[in-house]
């Protein structure tokens, strides 16, 4: 009897560490794997861009509007620049803008959402109304307005995209915090005598990350589109920066005579957005407790 008691006490449900568990379900999820392969591929290309091409992205030549060939894989544009070179350098810009815009809106949005959700009261009222106001405008319109004020340019486009995405993360964080702060372990932390700061950052925040991570991945895709849209409107990256949206805008007059000037930057945007959406959807499924067996 005594030995039996000890056995039950020391029996531990044998499970792997959380990240191992995560990796297993991640690798089992097809769209998550495809999405991350696409993203890793894009990141790799962006990093080794100079090795992949003999051309400079802004170097003009006399080979104007050449169709794709062995020398110029994606053809050349109206100034004789190699489109393949511009597309792979463009990956640098898009990933850069997407990354910092999303990080910026996650940091600011989460912080505001955390304050609103945890403290409630007038802080919640003020912050939530600001989110409502930001959400009342169509995102891209707000971004255009902000870039107009700040002045065109890739960095200002990045800031504008970050700001228009703040309410998405803020609301998400606020609702997570409202849920988590009622959990017994948060009450327990208070009962232990922990200060608000420790409760917030050690107990509430780590349990709120999952939806933020999923939304962050999906927002990366939106941010890439928004950056391209601003570029297309002439408000984002300025020539001769090889930004995909700007390239699309430049190619508009030649859509019938030289479609490759439009097709390849367009495909690059599609591929990037597809990659992040697949990964985001995959992560959402993986983290959804109802999907767990």
């Amino acid at each position: 009897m005594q030995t039996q008691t000890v056995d039950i006490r020391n029996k531990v449900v044998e499970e792997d560490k959380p990240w191992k568990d995560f990796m297993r379900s991640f690798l089992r999820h097809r769209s998550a794997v495809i999405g991350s392969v696409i993203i890793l591929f894009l990141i790799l290309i962006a990093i080794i861009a100079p090795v992949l091409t003999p051309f400079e992205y802004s170097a003009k030549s006399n080979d104007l509007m050449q169709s794709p060939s062995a020398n110029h894989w994606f053809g050349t544009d109206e100034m004789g620049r190699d489109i393949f070179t511009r597309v792979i350098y463009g990956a640098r810009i898009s990933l850069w803008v997407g990354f910092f815009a999303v990080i910026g809106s996650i940091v600011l949005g989460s912080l505001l959402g955390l304050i609103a959700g945890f403290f409630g009261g007038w802080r919640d009222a003020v912050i939530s109304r600001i989110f409502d106001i930001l959400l009342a405008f169509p995102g891209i319109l707000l971004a255009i307005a902000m870039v107009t004020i700040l002045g065109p340019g890739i960095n200002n486009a990045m800031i504008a995209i970050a700001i228009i995405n703040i309410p998405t993360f803020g609301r998400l964080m606020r609702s997570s915090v409202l849920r988590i702060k009622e959990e017994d372990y948060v009450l327990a932390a208070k009962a232990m005598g922990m200060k608000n700061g420790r409760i917030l950052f050690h107990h509430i925040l780590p349990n709120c990350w999952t939806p933020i991570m999923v939304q962050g991945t999906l927002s990366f895709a939106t941010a890439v589109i928004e950056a391209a849209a601003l570029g297309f409107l002439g408000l984002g990256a300025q020539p001769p920066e090889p930004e995909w949206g700007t390239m699309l805008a430049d190619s508009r007059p030649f859509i019938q005579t030289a479609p490759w000037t439009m097709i390849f930057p367009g495909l690059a945007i599609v591929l990037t957005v597809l990659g992040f959406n697949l990964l985001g959807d995959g992560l959402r499924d993986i983290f959804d407790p109802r999907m767990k067996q």
Partner: protein
Amino acid sequence: MGKEMQTQPSPLLKVQELVKTFPIHGGIFSRKVGEVRAVDQVSFDVFPGETLGLVGESGCGKSTTGRSILRLYEPTSGEIEFEGKSLLKLSQEEMRRTRRDLQMVFQDPFASLNPRQKIADILEEPLIVHGIGNAKERKEQVLELLRVVGLDKHHASRYPHQFSGGQRQRIGIARALSVKPKLIVADEPVSALDVSIQSQVLNLMEDLQEQFGLTYIFIAHDLSVVKHISDRVGVMYLGRMVELTHRDELYQNPLHPYTQALLSAVPIPNPEVNRERILLQGDVPSPADPPKGCAFHPRCPYVMDVCKKERPEFVDKGNGHFVACHLIS
């Protein structure tokens, strides 16, 4: 109220006329349209080294009482004295420091541990926030705590989801013990556990009480569990304490009609015994709109006119047997 004519040592905790109400919001502007009186003028003392059981049905306010004592819910009114000093007058920061002496064990061992912390971190954190020991001493103390509650050293590096319910509750108890508190409020610590595990955890709590001289407020709805562990038992109904006395006295000589009905509902594991079951009519009234007078009068088999008008006082009927009933006076 407040009859402390007992020949006992001075109480560790003194609760007087504790009231906790929760507002009910309604309407389009979510204005306050009413309030739930979850705890309604509850008074009792807890003496050093004893276990005070609090029993009652779901929603009778026993958990709210426990949480209000620790100021996890801010009490609406009343007085709570711990070692002679008023807890309600303390500032947030003073209260935070005082929490070292007042700890809590939670009902649901699956919800009360942070799923993202390792057991070692869960047990070490209270020591950090109260500035106890250096890193090395704390690590040793964590291992000692695990040993004390019957867990293994290698459990320290695991996460809560890797444990069973009983093991998690041991971790919850170890966490409460880590700061060497004087009083532990145990809020239904075994009701989420299998019966076979319940006795293990109860025995552990008794051993620890003896070892560390702990005082417990033990909240439960299971009368046999309360009988097993308590020295004195308080019975609550609709936010009020209706009877409070020594365990044996309560189980042998219940005075309040509600206590009598409650005790008659305890199953006896012997089919030969024939006994009277007191079946109460109706449901527990809503604490948002409690009956006038005695809260129990709509269901009481011995109801008198006075019960509908006047609220009975909670007074000592001799030998520390407190009861709130017009029948007994």
